[in-house]
């Protein structure tokens, strides 16, 4: 199968897209921004006769605040997220992650729904979404499903998305002024780098003694899917977050990971990095950003 034999379907409405998925799956393969799918097509990783191009569906490109949640359409690009006042105000860590994905060219085309659908364990938008308690909304001809993000990813590059479904939106907690958050990434360079390790931290329910009743820490590129740092979270819950407490908890973070050796780093290195990056993330969330060369 060469690319000259692949048809591309361009539905103009969501209903039309759902009808095509209903009729033609499993022959159809969804494409959104294209930054993963086109590379995988050319590498022969994806073999398909038909692509369903979702880009014409402007109705899936939005960012809204409804009550205490932010809703983002699956075709929202990283540039949309970086420029969004809503995301910057209520979920800054997601904007910080979007800004560090690829470079501007990629941010202009790559979509949030694409990052979810591609399900790479190194996807930079995913740890922030875990830490923000995100819910993935899927649609098919037979209806809508709301899937908590931890149930959406079921294995290495495997999601709970059915062949007749597409991702409609993802919604997540809007943080308040009292909440604290951070996203940190270690790549081999500052731009156009796939993460060796990435970390998202969200601290909510702040009490006067600088402790938090809700701690969510998510780690990327250290397991087949994103992992919550459960032991680390437990060690931080309701504790005053002084540097000693944060460091001790950070040393537990690697216990919830199962990294592999690959061209970007060894498993052992990743475990070391997790401790440092979680500590740095906590420090940034609680105290403030550590500037380079300080």
């Amino acid at each position: 199968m060469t690319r000259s034999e692949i048809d591309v379907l361009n539905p103009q409405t969501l209903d039309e897209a759902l009808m095509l998925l209903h009729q033609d799956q499993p022959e159809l393969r969804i494409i959104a921004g294209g930054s993963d799918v086109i590379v995988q097509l050319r590498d022969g990783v994806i073999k398909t006769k038909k692509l369903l191009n979702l880009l014409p569906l402007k109705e899936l490109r939005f960012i809204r605040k409804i009550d205490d949640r932010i809703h983002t359409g699956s075709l929202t690009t990283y540039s949309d997220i970086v420029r969004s006042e809503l995301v910057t105000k209520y979920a800054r860590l997601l904007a910080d992650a979007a800004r560090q994905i690829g470079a501007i060219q990629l941010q202009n085309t790559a979509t949030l729904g694409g990052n979810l659908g591609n399900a790479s364990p190194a996807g930079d938008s995913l740890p922030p979404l875990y830490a923000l308690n995100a819910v993935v909304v899927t649609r098919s001809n037979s209806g809508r499903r709301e899937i908590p993000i931890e149930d959406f990813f079921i294995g290495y590059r495997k999601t709970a998305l059915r062949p007749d479904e597409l991702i409609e939106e993802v919604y997540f907690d809007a943080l308040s002024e009292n909440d604290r958050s951070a996203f940190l990434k270690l790549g081999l360079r500052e731009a156009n780098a796939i993460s060796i390790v990435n970390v998202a931290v969200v601290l909510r329910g702040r009490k006067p003694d600088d402790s938090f009743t809700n701690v969510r820490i998510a780690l990327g590129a250290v397991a087949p899917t994103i992992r919550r740092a459960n032991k680390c979270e437990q060690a931080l819950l309701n504790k005053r977050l002084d540097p000693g407490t944060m460091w001790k908890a950070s040393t537990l973070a690697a216990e919830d990971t199962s990294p592999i050796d690959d061209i970007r780093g060894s498993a052992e290195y990743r475990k070391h990095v997790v401790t440092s990056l979680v500590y740095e993330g906590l420090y940034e969330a609680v105290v403030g950003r550590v500037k380079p060369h300080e």
Partner: protein
Amino acid sequence: MMESRQVPVEHVIAFRLNGKPVTVKCPPAYTLLEILRDKLHVTGPKEDCAKGECGACTVLMNGQPVCSCLVLVSQAQGSEIITSEGLVKDGKLNSVQEAFLEEGAVQCGHCIPGIIVSATALLMRNPNPTVEDIRTALAGNLCRCTGYTKIIVAVQEAAKKWSHRL
């Protein structure tokens, strides 16, 4: 069993290229870059990595810099595409192109069409960029001659002369 021979799929795709409407009949799963170069003979954008890492294929799509190797030609239907060639108006280079010549910012030249497009996009949204802004805007464009210093100087010079024409 007889193997059925697949027939190439072709679509008629229309978009605006460098200010003029174009219509092209081609396989819809080819990349915009392949069609620009091989069918429309617009060779400013180059294919190097084909993964969105080098930026040599950068074009403006509806005013935004994108990697044309990561856009299906079918996805460009109805869009406005501008390559480095389209930045020349009435035979006159734009201020970024002029500054690259004046500052000697071009070595082998291979990456330059993509860099010119990225730098022009930067000045369109931010006519007074800091060095940091320039570095961020060009982070997706690799120069394997590593001539970055003069490239950044050229963009600074272009910003001084930037008149809002594209």
